[in-house]
């Protein structure tokens, strides 16, 4: 495999395998490891049989390589999925040398030349996750089995991310997660073939806590409303831990059914509970409705325990902010990235996306764009599409120029570490897109944690699976 690639490489580019391996900490071990695993393929539970002659699943043999973009195209997160798809298409254009190149011009790694990946033109297929785990697995499986997708990227839910990540691990393809914020994705459910660029609930808590202390003080009593599923639980756990470490007291934690559409019966008792802060561990439509209900009940106009009542939404997205409208004014939360950042990577991506689509990108779009570029770059640096080589190239990779400043893809759990944003609903937005303002850019060091942290314990990364 490696020699064939070397033969295909244009001579004028002076492509040097050894140089790449040394410079980027890529070893033969990763590629050899995959060979060993592939050699024992008969003993592995694999869902594939057709490509058993290949060295790894969906090994590209023609002039092109196919990526699989698995995003919600129907269901409540369809708009977010559409934004991800726009960014993924833009990334493919840039990889193929079309458009203005976007972040290829600012990325610290210069392995990508705008001539596809390893000289192969990049194509893509799309799947609809519907934000349902079973549907997402089915669409990813179809893209891998029928369309020959070598990497799966996208999604707007942790449940979907964990499900698809598990499938990709079995199938022997790389999963570059989209929007997934639960600790478990790179905690107890982490997988060797899966990589998360997006931040997580622990990081939200770590970033938010100092800002909450500065703005609201250290003697607060918090009331949590939490979406009753995996992501909600991990976020509640993270925010409770970080705020109690400040000295806050947790008055109550109430789980609300995911299917809830009206939260009045959960909001109504908050004022009489002795709490002076409401934390909404909700996302998407749940968050839009619970925040709208909280504003209706006039919580932000009240005084409790001698303090102005406050609301916190630990995880924000641009689409949620748009859905919540004026209700988010002054409400604090956190984000993975925002188009208003001023680093060169962000500016390049926003310009490219904005000129093509007429609007700034969302943070889920940015994470998908970055993930596609990171995958392509890892293939180039590894000199192979073999998932084990790609995984090794991504592990402990340090880079800059894709937004959020210097970033580290930790090898121990495949979690990306970068600056995290604390944002607030803009009191005076000037247009439809600046509904959130950046309050603080929390340095990466402040949100880092040990891979064995109790909130992430219980899972094993395992070994990479090249499939086939």
């Amino acid at each position, binding site marked *: 495999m490696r020699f064939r690639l070397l033969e295909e490489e244009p001579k004028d580019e002076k492509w040097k395998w050894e140089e790449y391996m040394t410079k980027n900490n890529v070893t033969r071990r990763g590629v050899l490891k995959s060979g060993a695993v592939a050699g024992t393929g008969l003993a592995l539970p694999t869902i594939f049989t057709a490509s058993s002659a290949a060295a790894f699943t969906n090994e590209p043999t023609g002039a092109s390589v196919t990526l699989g973009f698995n995003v919600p195209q129907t*269901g*409540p*997160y*369809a*708009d977010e999925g559409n934004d991800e798809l726009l960014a993924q298409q833009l990334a493919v254009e840039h990889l193929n040398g079309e458009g203005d190149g976007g972040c290829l011009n600012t990325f610290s790694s210069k392995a990508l030349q705008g001539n596809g990946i390893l000289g192969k033109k990049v194509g893509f297929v799309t799947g609809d996750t519907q934000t349902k785990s079973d549907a997402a697995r089915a669409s990813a499986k179809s893209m891998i089995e029928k369309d020959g997708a070598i990497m799966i990227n996208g999604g707007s839910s942790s449940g979907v991310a964990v499900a698809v990540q598990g499938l990709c691990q079995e199938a022997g393809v790389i999963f570059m997660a989209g929007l997934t914020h639960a600790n478990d994705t790179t905690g107890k459910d982490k997988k060797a073939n899966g990589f998360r660029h997006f931040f997580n609930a622990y990081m939200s808590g770590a970033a938010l806590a100092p800002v909450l202390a500065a703005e609201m003080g250290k003697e607060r009593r918090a009331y949590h409303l939490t979406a009753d599923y995996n992501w909600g639980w991990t976020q509640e756990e993270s925010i409770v831990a970080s705020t109690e470490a400040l000295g806050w007291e947790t008055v*109550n934690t*109430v*789980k609300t*059914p995911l*299917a809830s*559409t*009206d939260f*009045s*019966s*959960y909001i*109504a*008792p908050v*004022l*009489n509970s002795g709490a002076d802060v409401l934390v909404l561990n909700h996302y998407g*439509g749940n968050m*839009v*409705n619970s925040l*709208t*209900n909280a504003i*209706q*009940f*006039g919580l932000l*106009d*009240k005084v*409790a325990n001698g303090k102005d009542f406050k609301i916190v939404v630990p995880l924000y997205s641009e*689409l949620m902010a*748009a*859905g*919540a*409208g*004026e*209700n988010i004014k002054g409400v604090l939360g956190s984000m993975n990235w925002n*188009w*208003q950042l001023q680093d060169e990577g962000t500016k390049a991506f*926003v*310009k490219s996306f*904005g*000129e093509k689509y007429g609007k*700034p990108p969302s943070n889920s779009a940015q994470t998908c764009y970055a993930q596609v570029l990171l995958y392509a770059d890892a293939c180039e640096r590894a000199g192979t599409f073999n998932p084990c080589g790609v995984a090794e190239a991504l592990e402990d990779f340090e880079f800059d120029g894709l937004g959020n400043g210097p970033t580290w893809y930790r090898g121990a759990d495949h979690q990306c570490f970068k600056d995290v944003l604390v944002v607030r609903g803009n009191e005076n937005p*000037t*247009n439809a*897109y*600046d509904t959130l303002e950046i309050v603080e850019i929390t340095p990466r060091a402040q949100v880092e944690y040990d891979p064995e942290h109790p909130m992430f314990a219980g899972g094993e990364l395992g070994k990479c699976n090249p499939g086939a």
Partner: protein
Amino acid sequence: MDAILLQILNGLDKGSAYALIALGLTLIFGTLGVVNFAHGALFMIGAFCAVTLQKLLNLSFVTLDETQKDFLGNPLKVETPFIEAWFGPEVGATIIDWSVPLSILFAIPVMLLVGYVMERGLIKHFYKRPHADQILVTFGLAIVLQEIVKYFFGANPIQTPPPDVLSGSVDLGTMVGFDPNAIIYPIWRLVYFGFAVGIIGAVFSFLQFTTFGMVVRAGMADRETVGLLGINIDRRFTIMFGIAAGVAGLAGVMYGPLNPPNYHMGMDFLVLSFVVVVVGGMGSLPGAVLAGFLLGILESFASTTWATTTIPGINQIIIYLVAIIVLLTRPRGLMGRKGVMEE
């Protein structure tokens, strides 16, 4: 005591939406004998009537403000609604502010038309088909309608705020002698409850005190005999379908300020509303209203911390639990006629 009153208020509020949708469902089942699974979609279309009028009132012309920049560094495009240019900023802003109440006037003809087209164009072909066929075709229609709405308005919720004067909350507790902050309640939720009571009263009065209503009631009791008397009962039932669609639509218009409309909101209410109809008694209009409010209040109490701590998950199953108990002990529902759904 104040907590109990607060949950009763919440229940009446939720129950208002259940009762209005269930009332329409019962009207259609009672008159046409059709199980209309597209009824939730009519509720959703009503809410989107408010969204549409809000968008129409906000149609704007664009001027460039060279002093401000957009996200790409180009001069900022400032949008000024035509209505503010035509009527002056203050009057224009007031009209936009009152877009939800104004949407009632917009929604009535739209919903009557939607109901008429739906009944004449599709549902009338299924009158003599089994209920299973009716359910399948109306459920399919609901999916089509919600996908059309999603195509034009997207999947994200869209805020339709109430007029400024009716937003915010009132301290009802202090009015009846409780401590301040004991019973804080949003004004628009009180408006919604009052509106629901008004609509329900109007529908009952229409059926009870008009000749048209009397004929419809007679037709519901014995369609064949009324037809033999030379009355075109089918035409009246078609009009009743339009009225039922109108009731669902108006319920949707006024619901928007409580929770921002999205294309899926009809489905969220549909199943619950059917449970309400079954509990109230298939074909019983007072039963639908009574069960709507009753289940709304029960759901509200089941969501309290006390209830969820005592019986975890009770908030998610209470309505279905009640439905099971009612069906086991009184299959015709609380106020259903003897013999209906009992054979």
